[in-house]
């Protein structure tokens, strides 16, 4: 080659060049290194703050937004006991015992079974208008309607639903006292109306617990919750055994524990998603490299032929996500949560042979061959572009069915691309090269999935179902239509509640 000696001489001379930089250069480098460290610290702080604030929002949500599942639990327990209830016995539940001593001497008998019978607690012959309105309301919920109807079906026609407590409201002693008088009159009216064995009931569809109070408790100024040491929101039915003989019958009492509260407190869960990821132009359209990145390299004017190069098709690659979530319920069916996940996504391309290149090694005084670039083509070697993300998902979860077997979740995820070995395509040169600066570090995505609870062992539930995540942020800075899509099967292990 005619010119090689010239190049060699130039190389040798150039390698010898050494120039001393001014001290300001190092000061600048040191300052920037400090700034980077600070930025990294700030990024971690922001992440931590986001998580903490998310948790705080859920934590500080108004208590009355939390509807426990105990209502259902109580009803369920009542249903179980309903069959045991003797038709000859008068079911008295909860507020029906809120009578003064005088009344309690003559009131109808009650059994713990009856006390638990929520299906039969909403019927009374008295007119609804005579009932206190503050803090109480006609129950219009479907559950209570059904319980009312069931009860009414077995009772005289005169009975009808009268009182239910407003969900989530704490009953005060004054209210209880007021109800006492009403219940007494209801009982009397019931007797008159039905002649005998008419259930005289003050309804209780209290959201968290059915609280039965001993006769006279209200007058003694004792809060029903205090009597039994049980918070009205707690999942226990508490009936105080009365000391006094209530005539020929006694009210049996006891504490019946129901299913532990699953809807109050924090519910951690472990997540695992296994699937495949691909590059998309949008949710439905796969990324077309030929349309987006191909540039026709025609014969250049000088007559030098350039080989036709085209980018590889992008195929799906394996993907998975693993992490932990923590959820808090709002109502019996809806929960909101946040988590921290590691997500691995990949796609597969085919690259051509490495393009050899060389550089002069100053120390060894020789040319060193290296391969920083790969040719393009669809008949080359398979290569997996791998992406490692850390992300914080914030999700909304909805239990679709009553039995809570199926749930749907959706949310957004903010992630940071912590690493990648992906190759980018240079359409002018027709080669693949690696440049992580070309990738967008902060990623935002949306996800959704359906979960089916298939097993529960020792309070730990296992669920699985389809999962999909679509990255709203384009993967590359330059190309705005490269979005990642992860489709797979998601599994969750719902651990026991924290609090």
């Amino acid at each position, binding site marked *: 080659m005619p010119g090689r000696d010239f190049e060699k001489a130039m190389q040798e001379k150039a390698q010898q060049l050494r*120039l001393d930089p001014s001290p300001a250069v190092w000061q600048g480098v040191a300052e920037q290194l400090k700034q980077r460290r600070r930025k990294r610290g700030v990024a971690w702080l922001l992440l931590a703050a986001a998580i903490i604030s998310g948790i705080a929002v859920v934590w500080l949500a108004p208590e009355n937004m939390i509807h426990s599942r105990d209502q259902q639990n109580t009803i369920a327990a009542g249903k179980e006991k309903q069959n045991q209830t003797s038709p000859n016995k008068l079911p008295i539940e909860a507020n029906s015992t809120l009578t003064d001593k005088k009344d309690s001497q003559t009131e109808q008998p009650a059994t713990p079974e009856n006390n638990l019978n929520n299906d039969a607690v909403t019927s009374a012959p008295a007119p609804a208008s005579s009932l206190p309105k503050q803090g109480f309301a006609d129950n219009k919920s479907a559950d209570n309607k059904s319980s009312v109807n069931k009860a009414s079906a077995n009772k005289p026609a005169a009975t009808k639903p009268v009182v239910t407590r407003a969900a989530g409201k704490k009953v005060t002693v004054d209210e209880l006292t007021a109800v006492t008088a009403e219940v007494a009159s209801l009982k009397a009216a019931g007797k008159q109306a039905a002649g005998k064995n008419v259930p005289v009931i003050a309804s209780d569809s209290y959201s968290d617990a059915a609280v039965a109070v001993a006769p006279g408790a209200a007058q003694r100024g004792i809060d029903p919750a205090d009597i039994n040491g049980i918070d009205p929101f707690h999942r226990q039915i508490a009936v105080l055994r009365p000391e006094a003989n209530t005539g020929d019958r006694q009210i049996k009492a006891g504490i019946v524990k129901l299913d532990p509260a699953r809807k109050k407190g924090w519910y951690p869960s472990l997540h695992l998603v296994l699937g495949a990821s691909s590059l998309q132009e949008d949710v439905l359209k796969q990324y077309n490299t030929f349309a987006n990145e191909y540039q026709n390299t025609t014969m250049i004017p000088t007559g030098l032929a350039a080989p036709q190069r085209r980018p590889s098709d992008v195929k799906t690659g394996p993907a998975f996500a693993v992490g932990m979530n923590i959820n808090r319920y709002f109502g019996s069916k809806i929960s909101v949560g946040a988590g921290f996940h590691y997500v691995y996504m990949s796609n597969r391309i085919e690259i051509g042979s490495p393009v050899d290149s060389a*550089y002069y090694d*100053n120390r060894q005084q020789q040319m060193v061959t290296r391969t920083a670039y790969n040719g393009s083509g669809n008949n080359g070697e398979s290569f997996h572009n791998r992406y490692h993300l850390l992300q914080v998902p914030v999700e909304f979860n909805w239990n679709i069915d009553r039995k809570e077997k199926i749930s749907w979740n959706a949310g957004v995820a903010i992630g940071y691309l912590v690493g990648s070995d992906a190759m980018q395509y240079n359409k002018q*040169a027709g080669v693949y090269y690696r440049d992580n600066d070309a990738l967008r570090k902060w990623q935002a995505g949306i996800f959704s999935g359906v979960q089916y609870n298939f097993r529960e062992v020792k309070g730990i539930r296992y669920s699985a179902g389809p999962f999909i995540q679509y990255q709203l942020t384009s993967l590359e800075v330059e190309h705005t239509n490269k979005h990642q899509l992860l489709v797979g099967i998601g599994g969750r292990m719902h651990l026991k509640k924290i609090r």
Partner: protein
Amino acid sequence: MINEHQLVKDCLKGKPSAQKALYEHFAAPMLGVCYRYTKSMTDAEDVLQEGFVKVFHYLGQFRGDGDLGAWIRRIMVTTAINYLKKNSRYQYDLSFSAEQQGYLHPVSPENPEVNLDAKQLADLVRQLPPGYQAIFNLHAIEGYTHVEISAMLGIHEGTSRSQYARARNLLITWLQKESESIKMSHYARS
């Protein structure tokens, strides 16, 4: 002689003393690299600073099986190219027109003697237009192929070849003139 392996380890731990030692060891040769790609010492020092920040940032990716100096040198070259692309003063000369793409100078068969020292030669290369300068440095001195240069600069491979040929011819002409003037001064002295 410094222990590069240990130095890298200490730098990865974030020790400022190790970072400074690494910088001091490589700053002078790397400034030489940056100097060849830019038009002023200030620009060269800017590139050096930016390059060293990248070196410390990506040091974790250095596998240790190669030469650390060569690895840093590649970062400096890439940083210099990016600097030229970003800097408005160089952008005009880096945009290659269609006419330029088709133009190919005949390659001179001569191999003039390079009697200048490293600094003088670098100054000569810096007199080339920025586009030529970058391509000449990348191909003749760093050893990059025209395919790689086309990828780095975002130009056609043919453009890279033609620009290099132009740069080479210019340099040879200048070198011949320089050597003649040196000879003349030599004769004058004798």
